[in-house]
């Protein structure tokens, strides 16, 4: 009993803060999503109408598909690349390893609205270092009107921004591997691949679960950076879910925005839940 009280008292400040900034607003969004809202005093109960309208609209379905595709591309690039970089970094001299980690942490401290500005300046064909190089090589790069180029720019920018998180967390798991394990593997004459498969990968798995989730959610709901690059264009090719949601909020369509927000939240929670189920089953423990 005394233990339970102490446990509760220690958690109380955190739970109060989270209740105020997370649980209350989430309940409010849930409530708005069943209303047609003209102003905060004039809200009419309309049940599931918003949901029906949104789920059956092409606009929602195509932006959902774009967001899922974007997250898929991001994960397929950043997770293997981040692991590969971490595997190299942990084998470098400690001074160089620290230098590498500091390097990849840099983009994490750049304000999010400045990241697209920096990249647009970089690929500017007149003044940008990369833009002039691309033009010098005679390539036609046109992120404004060619959908594939807009996607490429956003993917490269996102990789620049977030690769550090993957590398840092992967390094954390790798540096926890005791040196005798490597020595034993060397004595057994294990190949590089076998060391990765049987020593490094199992250690990485635990930490990677979280990286995968964080990268999935953050890329799935990318807003600030993607909007500033091309405002969802060309021709809505980069209008992701959250950009769609932003449009509704800007149009003061609160009920519809709330329903969209709940649907996004549902996708996120479903993925997180499924992911936790799969990973805990594999480890054979709760």
């Amino acid at each position, binding site marked *: 009993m005394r233990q339970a009280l*102490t446990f509760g008292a220690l958690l109380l*400040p*955190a739970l109060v803060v*989270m209740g*105020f*900034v*997370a649980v209350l*607003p*989430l309940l409010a*969004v849930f409530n708005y999503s069943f209303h047609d809202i003209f102003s*905060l005093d004039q809200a009419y109960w309309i049940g599931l109408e918003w949901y029906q309208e949104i789920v059956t609209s092409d606009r929602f379905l195509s932006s959902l598909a774009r967001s899922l595709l974007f997250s898929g591309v991001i994960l397929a690039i950043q997770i293997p690349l981040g692991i590969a970089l971490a595997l*190299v970094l*942990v*084998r470098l*001299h400690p001074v*160089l*390893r620290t230098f590498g*980690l*500091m*390097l990849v*942490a840099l983009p994490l*401290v*750049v*304000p*999010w*609205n*400045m990241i697209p*500005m*920096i*990249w647009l*300046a*970089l690929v500017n064909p007149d*003044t*940008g*270092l990369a833009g002039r190089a691309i033009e010098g090589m005679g390539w036609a790069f046109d992120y404004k009107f060619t959908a594939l180029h807009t996607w490429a720019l956003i993917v490269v920018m996102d990789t*620049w921004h977030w690769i550090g998180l993957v590398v*840092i*967390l992967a390094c*954390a*798991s790798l540096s926890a591997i005791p040196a005798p394990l*490597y020595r034993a593997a060397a004595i057994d004459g294990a190949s590089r691949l076998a060391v990765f498969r049987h020593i490094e990968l199992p250690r990485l798995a*635990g930490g990677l679960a*979280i990286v995968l*989730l*964080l990268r999935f*959610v953050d890329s799935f*709901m990318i*807003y*600030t950076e993607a909007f500033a690059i091309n405002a969802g264009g060309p021709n809505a090719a980069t209008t992701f879910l*959250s950009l769609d*949601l932003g449009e509704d909020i800007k149009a003061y369509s*609160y009920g519809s925005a*709330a329903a969209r*927000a709940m649907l*996004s*939240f549902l996708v*996120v*929670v479903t993925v*997180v839940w499924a992911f936790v189920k799969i990973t805990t089953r594999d480890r054979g423990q*709760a």
Partner: protein
Amino acid sequence: MRTGFHPARLLVLAMLALFILLPLVQTVVLSFLNTLPRDGLAEGTPSLINYRNIFASDDLRASLVNSGVYVLLNVALCLGAGLPAAYAFSRYRFTGDRHLLLALLVFRMTPPVVLSLPIFILFAQVGLVNSPIGIALVHCLFNLPIAIWILESFISAVPQELDETAFIDGHSLPSFFLRHLIPAIAPGIGVAAFFCFSFSWVEVVFARILTVTGGKPITMAINALFTFQTDIGLVMAMTVISLIPGVAMIWFVRNHIARGFTIRA
């Protein structure tokens, strides 16, 4: 495992450095160029004019202070509420405690755009709009779970005997925290502070909607610079300045940055 100066690995590091630094070099170069036609100064000439303009502008200077205030408040809140919670998760066993920790992480994964509207309405009702306290609080949404997670793994690395001897010596829980626990996990506190600091400093969505008329943070001050004729040099100079605190934080935690991300099953 051998560590050293293998040439292929050095090449990888060099390419990584090029990829990460190229956009930043571009930013720094532009910040030292005059990018608007001005009297007696041709476009594209190297100059310190952008930095002089920042310190001549009240709005830009004030935005630096505003950001600094709410970021520091947020770090204090996250450590203050996160440390006891992390200790509880590390040392006590209760049914559902793992689920509770996971539920907290789900909130980290809730997209800000989803909650922006009700948070604005809620905060407007209790008078937290245009105030640094409001932004510091709302950034706990994603920073507090991260802080608890990092601190929990550092506390779990401290042997339980430390707690037991301290309690036998007659320390109360608060005095044990101050005298023994905090010194023992100082690197962890540094790492947690670094991540809270950077995620609060770079956040845009909440910082925008919660500052309607006043208390504009640095991110919004930069946004306001985009006009009909944007002085891109000034924007880049402001960006360079906005990087300085983050770079200083990276330097302070450089030796501990990759620790503290282990999760117990």
